[in-house]
């Protein structure tokens, strides 16, 4: 369960990243944050594990209010996936997945690269669950494809049985079919483990298909908060009205074509 109460975030240069955010994400929900770049999606996600502290307001994660004192214990229950995967490129798949458990394992044994048996077993199980094989365990991460790397990212995020998974544009650097697979996998695994997922996306169709709920963000404010099937063009215009959206804004595209015709340029 995640609850944002009256969150406001101002950066030192005066930009307002978030304003008046009141959202409660119940346990087990797959909640999608939708918005263009700079709308505040990443900032909101990073509030949950304290990578960013709000200027005012409270964040409550799994009945614990986030503060300097509780940040370590919250981070143990919250895991994160990243747009650029943020895996250690030169390390093997196994080490990357097991490094997700670093908050829990013994300090000295982890320094010599040793992980306890249950973590190793869990790692194998998860690598299998995300669709990779035994032959991938010792392969270097940078020798994998983007989709496979994000699968490793999912396995790393799930190794400590988190309560919350934060996914910061997990498919933004993947092609559409890989994106589809990754989101389906994330959804099914999180439902299976019963984790709450807060996932930022900018593809409307993916948000509709995989979200239990879609929260639209625009200039740091929530502009709609609806069930996926209730998100219509009217709602989408609230986030995309002022922008040339590359993801399926027919009206904008049509307007561009008209312009080209008007200026008399011949199209090939």
């Amino acid at each position, binding site marked *: 369960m995640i609850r944002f109460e009256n969150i406001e975030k101002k950066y030192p240069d005066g930009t307002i990243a978030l304003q008046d955010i009141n959202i409660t994400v119940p346990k087990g929900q797959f909640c999608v944050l939708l918005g263009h770049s700079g709308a505040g999606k990443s900032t909101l996600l990073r509030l949950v594990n304290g990578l960013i502290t709000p200027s005012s307001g409270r964040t409550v994660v799994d009945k614990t209010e986030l503060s300097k004192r509780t*940040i*370590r214990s919250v981070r*143990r229950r919250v895991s994160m996936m990243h747009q650029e995967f*943020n895996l250690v*490129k030169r390390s093997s798949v196994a080490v990357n997945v097991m490094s997700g458990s670093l908050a829990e394992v013994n300090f000295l044994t982890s320094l010599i690269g040793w992980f306890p048996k249950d973590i190793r077993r869990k790692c194998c199980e998860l690598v299998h669950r995300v669709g990779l094989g035994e032959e991938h365990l010792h392969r270097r991460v940078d020798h994998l494809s983007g989709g496979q790397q994000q699968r490793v990212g999912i396995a790393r995020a799930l190794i400590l049985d988190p309560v919350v998974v934060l996914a910061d544009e997990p498919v933004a650097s993947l092609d559409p079919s890989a994106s589809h697979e990754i989101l389906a996998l994330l959804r099914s695994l999180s439902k299976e483990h019963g984790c709450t997922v807060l996932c930022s996306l900018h593809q409307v169709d993916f948000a509709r298909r995989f979200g239990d709920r879609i929260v639209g963000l625009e200039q740091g404010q929530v502009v709609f908060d609806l069930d996926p099937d209730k998100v219509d063009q009217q709602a989408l215009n609230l986030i995309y009205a002022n922008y040339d959206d590359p993801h399926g804004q027919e009206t904008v595209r049509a307007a561009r074509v008209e312009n080209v015709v008007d200026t008399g340029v011949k199209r090939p």
Partner: protein
Amino acid sequence: MKEKARSPEKWDLAPPYGAKTVLVVIAVFMLLSVSARHSEVDRMLYLLGEAGGKVVGLSDSSQVVRGAERVVESMFPPKISEQTPVARIEGFDRDNLPLFSRVEEETITVTRFDVSAMETVETEETREILVQPFGYLQYVMRKMLETIEIALWATIIAILLSIPLAYYAASNYSPNRATYGAARSLVSFFRAVPELISAMFLVLAFGFGPIAGILALGIHSAGFLGKFYAEDIENADKGPQEALQAIGASKIKILRYAVLPQVLPQYLAYSMYILDRNVRMATVIGIVGAGGIGQELIGRYDMFDYGHVATILIMIFITVLLLDQIASRVRARLI
């Protein structure tokens, strides 16, 4: 609001350099010519020209060529054998001679002053000597090995010292500004003291021998490694570090799992370079008494045994050449 764009013909694209640059170049040139007179660069060029003239037969005499000829003459041939009078060897075992060696008899003329007759008497005496045709070469090889060992231990000490130094000297991991500043200045200090100077003082403290050499080289190269390591930590990809920070890993664990794998090949390359450099420096610091082949070199040099000096120099040259080859191969495999 954005300013209205100007039309291209009014754009300002200045030429790459102007009068100011020319003036600066002239000023630099004048400063250099003043400095050249100070440091006798003009005389150096004159002497080199003269030597070149002598070599191609344009001038009759050259001070430089004469000096070089003298050096080559006195160093040739390099001395590789060793002869020791048997009487001077403690516990000499006739049945168990060292490798390649033989015992020879030698007749020498001994001049004595006979007190009773009040005159000098020349008598012929025979004595046994142990001849080792490669004796000196073997000795130099042993000394070279000692030198390499000094370099190796100096590098190990440098690595061990520089790991904590790098942690505190990396701005993104140092606990606070004070530790960062302290570590940075310590690293600079280590680098600023030339190893020959610190070896001189360490010899006073620890006595002649390899200890002073190991410490002097170790501290100096810890300065280099600390700086290199710290900069690599600062420049490492931030993504994996943020990922591990987000799941609550401690700083040391983040360093171990997100930074170390990234920087390790680079670290090994630096350490190889430092080892290479330490071997070269270890041959030199023996000159102030800090062990290794340099100690032998300076002793022979002071006794005008230029044949021995030649052997040592050739040995150093071969060793450095070999190490260079090995190092570049290892480095190529690591990166």
